[in-house]
């Protein structure tokens, strides 16, 4: 079942930089997709268009039946509530505890406190951090911080988890741990779209790989590896 569809998508930034050309792509529900490519190949732009931080200049991006390109600025929050996003720099609030950081994403919906608590603990359990609820981000390792960010992204049970170089700041072992957590989330049915530079990781995961070069989609492997494109 088609979940995400890019149809003739172009993106030209206001300063005239062309970031994405003529992109056509379709992702099924429950897929795990890597987006790879050199810096400036358009990975980040593609991901930003998916969560409507940027709008495509032309074309359509359909996400779960909604044309993301047409979502108004004032309604973007409704889209964001249906997706989870994880970043390279975690984007945790340093003055909130682990629990508060995750609860934050639910409290803005006005969920009752006992439900917030139930969901937060479930999400933290899933990423293996149930024992750290009262810690502050600065007291955690990089891998743990990223797991908190993942817990926050999935606490609302989104259908899609977008990851923008989630392991970019982590050492290989920690990266692998974080990747296992993300894989577990994928196994529970969440679609994953991940931009990454991490060649080794992509090789080990054996998932679908989309390779971008200068803003164009040049290769798309069903069970591909990074090795394929580099040859």
């Amino acid at each position, binding site marked *: 079942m088609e979940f995400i569809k890019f149809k003739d998508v172009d993106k030209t930034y206001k300063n005239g930089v062309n970031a994405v050309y003529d992109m056509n792509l379709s992702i099924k529900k429950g897929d795990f997709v890597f987006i790879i490519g050199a810096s400036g190949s358009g990975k980040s732009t593609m991901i930003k268009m998916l969560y409507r931080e940027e709008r495509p200049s032309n074309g359509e991006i359909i996400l779960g039946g909604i044309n993301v390109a047409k979502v108004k600025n004032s309604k973007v*929050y*409704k889209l*964001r509530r249906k997706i989870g996003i994880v970043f390279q720099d975690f984007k945790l*609030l340093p003055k909130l505890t682990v629990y508060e950081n995750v609860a934050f*994403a639910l*409290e*803005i919906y*006005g969920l009752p406190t006992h439900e917030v608590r139930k969901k937060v603990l479930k999400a933290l359990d899933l990423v293996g951090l149930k024992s750290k609820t009262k810690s502050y981000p600065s007291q955690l390792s990089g891998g743990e911080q990223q797991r908190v960010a993942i817990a926050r992204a999935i606490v609302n049970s989104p259908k899609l988890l977008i990851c923008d170089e989630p392991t970019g700041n982590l050492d290989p072992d920690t990266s692998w741990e974080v990747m296992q957590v993300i894989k577990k989330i994928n196994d529970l049915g969440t679609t994953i779209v991940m931009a990454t530079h991490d060649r080794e990781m992509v090789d080990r995961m054996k998932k679908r790989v989309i390779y971008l070069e200068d803003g164009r989609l040049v290769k798309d492997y069903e069970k591909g590896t990074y090795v394929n494109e580099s040859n």
Partner: protein
Amino acid sequence: MKAIRILVRNVRDGFKSVGRNLSLSIASISCITITLLIVAIALVVASNVENITKAFKEDFTIVAFIDNSIAKEQAAQIKTSIEGIGNVESVTLVDKKEVANEMKDTSDELASIIDSWSDEENPLYDTLQIKVKDSEKISKTAKDIKDIAGVVTVKYGQGIVEELLTVFKVIEKAMIVAMIALVLVTLFLIGNTIKITIFSRKREIEIMRLVGASNFSIKQPFVIEGFCLGALGSLIPIAVTLYGYTALYKHFNGHFFSPFVKLVPSEPFVYLVALILLALGVIVGMFGSYRAVRKYLKI
């Protein structure tokens, strides 16, 4: 129910943020405190200056002298017709015997001369002392009184009164301009400090947007925080006004050096000033926050 829960959480977060960002909160609060203190002093000075000029104006009196040849009943009639003039507040008739008595009090020489007069010989005039409602129109009123048959002379301190009125007008205008300028400076200063407080939390706003907070629910805690900062910042200026002015008023016994310079009574004046300060702090705090957050929201 959902909306109430969100509101309660935002109020909680708004208050919490003041403590969490303590150093910047203190910076904002002290800025608000200092500007509001200046506003408080300006308000007190302006109100007292206004009070003094008003008291002066109320003291302006027109004195009309009545022709000695006319009968007492006619004098009463003149009094009634003066009372009929629109701008006249009150008229007091002082007959020439009283005038003579008043003059006797001023010096012994005069007293001995005046004592030599019999009642019929008294050359003085019966006089009418007239208070006006609007001192600006005093010369016109004086002219109207002069036109009444039987009135010989009219005096109201011609020249001096006009000059005083011009001076008062200038003072009043200067006060208004100064107050407006001061309030604008306050708005600007407080607004800017709060802006800095919020700019340092750009990241927080960014994350709120990413996890799906609506623009409204992002703004709400910040506006509440602005409310707290404004209210806390107005505490010291309010205390200074309440205790300081009351003490000052008591110390001077309600007069500033001379009994002619009356101070505004401390109650209810201080409460009014306190209310203005609180309102100014709170409104500027909320509005400043609102505008600063808006900058980081794509709307």
